[in-house]
């Protein structure tokens, strides 16, 4: 060390090559210490052993557009199980000739979702656009008007059913959850205890029991002669279940609100509903957007549980393809495909929540500066 004396051309001296660039990065991030080096070598060794085999299996030796018989002679993956059955896998028992209708409905739904991802665009016109889109989607699925062949809801299956159950599950459970949260915060003892009992009871049991309830117990609750179809009952179970979780998240937001907000609103002479609608909820709901999206993601994943009460969502159509003799033994490939669909949906939702979280942080800083 030449302590304080400055070298003549300090700015010309470059850092040692082992500290910067690729070598520096590798040293700092992969081999910083004995344990780290060992771990890196072990992991790299494992990857070198597994990855080529996987690529060989999944791509090089794979069969893409063959029949099930030919597939059984192939060494690698049999993606034919998906490519040959894709229409049944996605649309299930929806009439073959009419499958463009759910496809169009799904495209409308996804397009609307992508268009309304930016909340600066949320206004009344968008609301009407959504109402119209929902009407068109319902018409496409159900038929019966404008020369469309009517299709029973028992035939709705595959990906449209998954999206339907999760979209309406989310849409309807949100206001119900907010109401429950407000009820739990209420000063009226009877309403409060009803809400508490409901929320805690639902959160204490698995979704399966709710689905069982909808499939075996609910028919007993109805008066004679009245039947509600199975999809709707499962939908109701999902809504009731998700609402309890939303309620807890919203309660967190309500509790995080400054008491001054309530007092200020009351001092302006606003009544309870005005106060909630104009002052408290807009702020409280904004705080809890990230955890809410978390709940929505798990609601989306949980729709797969309808398999257990024998509804044909996308997981169950896959299972019934795999139970055909021609395609037994290719579950790995089929399940990987379905996993990818779920992954893409859930991952984009969580990315969205992260983006909103960042936006909220920036706004917060802006407010502090002012």
């Amino acid at each position: 060390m030449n302590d304080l004396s400055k070298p003549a051309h300090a700015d010309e001296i470059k850092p040692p090559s082992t500290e910067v660039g690729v070598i520096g990065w590798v040293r700092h991030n992969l081999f910083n210490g004995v344990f780290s080096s060992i771990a890196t070598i072990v992991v790299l060794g494992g990857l070198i052993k597994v990855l080529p085999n996987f690529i060989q299996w999944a791509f090089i030796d794979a069969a893409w557009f063959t029949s099930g018989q030919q597939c059984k002679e192939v060494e690698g993956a049999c993606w034919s199980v998906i490519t040959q059955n894709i229409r049944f896998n996605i649309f299930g028992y929806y009439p073959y000739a009419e499958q463009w209708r759910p496809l169009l409905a799904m495209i409308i739904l996804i397009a609307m979702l992508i268009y309304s991802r930016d909340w600066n665009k949320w206004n009344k016109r968008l609301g009407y656009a959504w109402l119209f889109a929902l009407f068109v989607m319902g018409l496409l699925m159900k038929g019966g008007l404008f020369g469309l062949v009517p299709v029973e809801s028992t035939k709705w299956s595959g990906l449209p059913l998954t999206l339907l159950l999760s979209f309406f599950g989310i849409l309807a459970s949100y206001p119900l959850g907010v109401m429950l949260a407000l009820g739990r915060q209420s000063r009226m003892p009877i309403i409060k205890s009803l809400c508490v009992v409901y929320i805690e009871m639902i959160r204490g049991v698995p979704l399966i029991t709710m689905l069982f309830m909808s499939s075996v117990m609910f028919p007993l609750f109805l008066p004679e002669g009245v039947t509600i179809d199975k999809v709707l009952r499962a939908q109701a179970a999902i809504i009731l279940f998700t609402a309890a979780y939303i309620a807890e998240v919203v309660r967190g937001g309500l509790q995080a609100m400054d008491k001054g907000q309530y007092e200020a609103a009351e001092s302006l002479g606003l009544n309870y509903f005005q106060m909630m609608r104009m002052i408290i909820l807009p702020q409280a709901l904004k705080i809890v957007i990230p955890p809410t999206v978390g709940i929505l993601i798990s609601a989306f994943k949980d729709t797969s549980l309808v398999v257990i009460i024998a509804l044909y969502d996308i997981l169950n159509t896959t299972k019934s393809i795999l139970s055909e003799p021609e395609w037994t033994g290719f579950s790995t490939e089929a399940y990987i495909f379905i996993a990818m669909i779920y992954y893409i949906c859930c991952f984009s939702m969580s990315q969205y929540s992260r983006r909103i979280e960042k936006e909220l942080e920036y706004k917060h800083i802006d407010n502090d500066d002012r």
Partner: protein
Amino acid sequence: MASDQNSNSRTYFWNDQKTRAVLYQIVTAAFVAFLGYYLISNVQTNMAKQSIASGFGFIEKEAAFEIGESLIEYSAADTYGRALVVGVLNTLKVSLVGMILTTILGTIIGVCTLSSNWLISKLGTAYVELFQNIPVLLQLFFFYALFYEIFPGPRQALNPVPGVFITNRGVDFPVPAPDPAWTWMGLAFVAACIIVWLINRWARKRQERSGQQFPAFWVGLAILILLPALTWSLSGAPTQMDVPELKGFNFQGGRNISPEFSALLIGLVLYTASFIAQIVRAGIQSISHGQTEAAMSIGLKPGMVLKLVIFPQALRVIVPPLTSQLLNLTKNSSLAVAIGYPDFVQVAGTTINQTGQAVEGVALMMLVYLTFSLLTSAFMNWYNKKIAIVER
């Protein structure tokens, strides 16, 4: 709005907030009561019409169905009550084993995601992203399919370690043949645990009093190993093992872990671990770096910094969400019904199918899981009180 005393008299009673609150509540309560009455009367008519018995009398009746695996003696001639107990025990079995494994795995992965090693932290993050975003039911199906499609039949069993066989009928492994020595060893182990606890307490008190340290960890470890070993050699040192052998079409002897149990356990553990990893990471990140620096500056070694300063504080953040994840694991174990593991929901479902008593069956299901979650939240409240920061 009434602002002073006098105008109170002019307020109509329906404009009074208190009266209104009472009114609202009466209306709500009446509505709920009416709904309940309506539904129950419907159930009664429907059940009478379909001639389904009501009440819990079926618990005493003969179940007449077999259960694949059971921790207690059970046959089809036993009662529904016993079958349901078998189901509860199976649920508890998979949940308890799963909780232990997933906590360990989740902690390891959580620490990995914070590693300074780029490769390790990316792998950890990739794991969390992957397993969190795929429904647990799909994962269960996947692992179950792996078992019966990839693994060979008993005749071509995989044999990774001598005595252990992996087949599409599960994992067979040897267990020690029954001998009284094992009971004694178990007792010796329990005794050793108590002694170690006492030594630890004494060592801590002595250190607080005199500052002298005692190598409690090494002494404890020695007692834990030596005491059972000594009992083993004193009680005749039995070495007889019960090894699984291929007889006919399947293995005889040893212990078998069924593919259903294995698939359920693997699926639940891997899925829940991805959530626990995130909780652990958030917990460690919540401790400010100043804590580490302060602890180092008073001369604690890095290991002690972790043990005495970081960990106790991080636990305060970690434990509440961790408990709820472990409870989630218990609730998700009800998905066993989809792959045929006889957990409580499956047994109750079979009971409903046979007796037709859906209301009682579903009520039992809810009751069992509600008990689990009430116990968990009781534990959580106790723990939160115990570790709460003592403020002035």
